[in-house]
């Protein structure tokens, strides 16, 4: 499951999944427990834990996968309450909303974004070096859980 492992490595994390329990259908990846595997036929619509999809060669993670990744990623930023709220509204993160930063601070790197409770809100891209920021926005929002509201509206 190279595509899943490659994505995890972008956050400095490593996830090893048993390929026996991963199903791929139409570019979408699902992780199934052994009981579910036994009752899942080829024509399923959705199964187990949805991990993400590959579209035009790009992997788009699910929030299930991001949650898993949050536990192992080394690149992580912790936002305060207000910044967390703005982030799930699709906004970028400003330096003054960041409580803590772990792992890479390098421009262009990906980082998980969590709230003060350590819950995964999504992920973003470092757009300015943290050590000497010249801009206010330091984490560009790539995907956030507010997507659940936006995708059905």
């Amino acid at each position, binding site marked *: 499951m190279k595509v899943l492992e490659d994505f995890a490595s972008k956050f400095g994390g490593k996830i090893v999944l048993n390929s026996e329990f991963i199903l791929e259908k139409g570019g979408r990846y699902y992780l199934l427990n052994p009981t579910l595997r036994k009752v899942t036929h080829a024509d399923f619509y*959705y199964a187990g834990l949805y991990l993400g999809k590959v579209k035009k060669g790009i992997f788009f993670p699910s929030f299930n996968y991001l949650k898993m990744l949050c536990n192992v990623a080394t690149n992580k930023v912790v936002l305060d309450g207000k910044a967390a709220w703005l982030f799930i509204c699709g906004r970028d993160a400003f330096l003054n909303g960041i409580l803590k930063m772990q792992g890479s601070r390098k421009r262009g790197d990906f980082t998980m974004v969590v709230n003060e409770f350590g819950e995964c809100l999504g992920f973003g891209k470092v757009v300015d070096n943290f050590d000497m920021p010249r801009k206010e926005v330091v984490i560009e929002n790539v995907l956030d859980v507010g997507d659940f509201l936006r995708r059905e509206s």
Partner: protein
Amino acid sequence: MSGKEFFVNRYREFGWEFRPVYARQAIRINQTNSKGKNLLERLRTAGADLMKVPFLESGYWVGKSKVSVGATVEYLLGLYSIQEAAAQIPATLFSTLKNKLVLDACAAPGGKTVHLADLMDNRGAIVALDINSRRLIALKNHLERCHVRSAVVYALDARKASSLNLEFDRILLDVPCSGNFASDPQWFSRRTLKDVERNAKVQREIIAESTKCLADEGEIVYSTCSLEPEEDELNIDWAVKNLNLQTESINTPGENGLTQVFEHRLDSSISLCRRIWPGETQGFFVCKLKKRVGKQ
């Protein structure tokens, strides 16, 4: 045969005097996801006015709140779901769920599927069916948001459930129904008795098909949000008389199921069903059925 007067007269005949009721918004805490997260305190701090629903373990009514409970971080993280109070009853009526094979025959948009997964602690497997493509999208989003791990979804008509060649320990039949006025202000002008009869026919087909896939000693929970006996007691009476099923006693609010409907005298066991007239909740009907073993 339609219109407010027609239906209100029917309700009077069944012993309930009509009064306008609007369903109150409620949430259900997803216990598996919210363990150790002080969810209630977090929601109350955010400005949500929550009142415990006395007959539900994880249900809270939402009062006038400063925050929309459908747009909080906690909601988006799957720590709770928005689910009307009566709709939180059916999944709780099965005797045991963990490690069982469960069919949710009319699953979308997934509120009860997620509830089942939560009660099962994601152990065992849920097979969820639906055919409406828009509702299937809502179902998969709901499963992803709540991090459900134990469900497989098929775009399949519940009336073809036996084509899966599986034998289920538990079956939830929250069947498509005519609804009720408490959850739809235009209900009286929208619905006719013909709609009710058409839905009742489909519901019987779903019960019959599901029974084919039910294991011996297996359980079915049947529910509708319809107040019309054609979709409720008359269907269950038919199932008990024709499908080797028996009603089981359930501990939930509501009145006994009707055993006299117009000129029809129903099986006395139909009284074990629960009819919830609109009031604290929307209108609802629920019952539990068990497959008889060794008798036809």
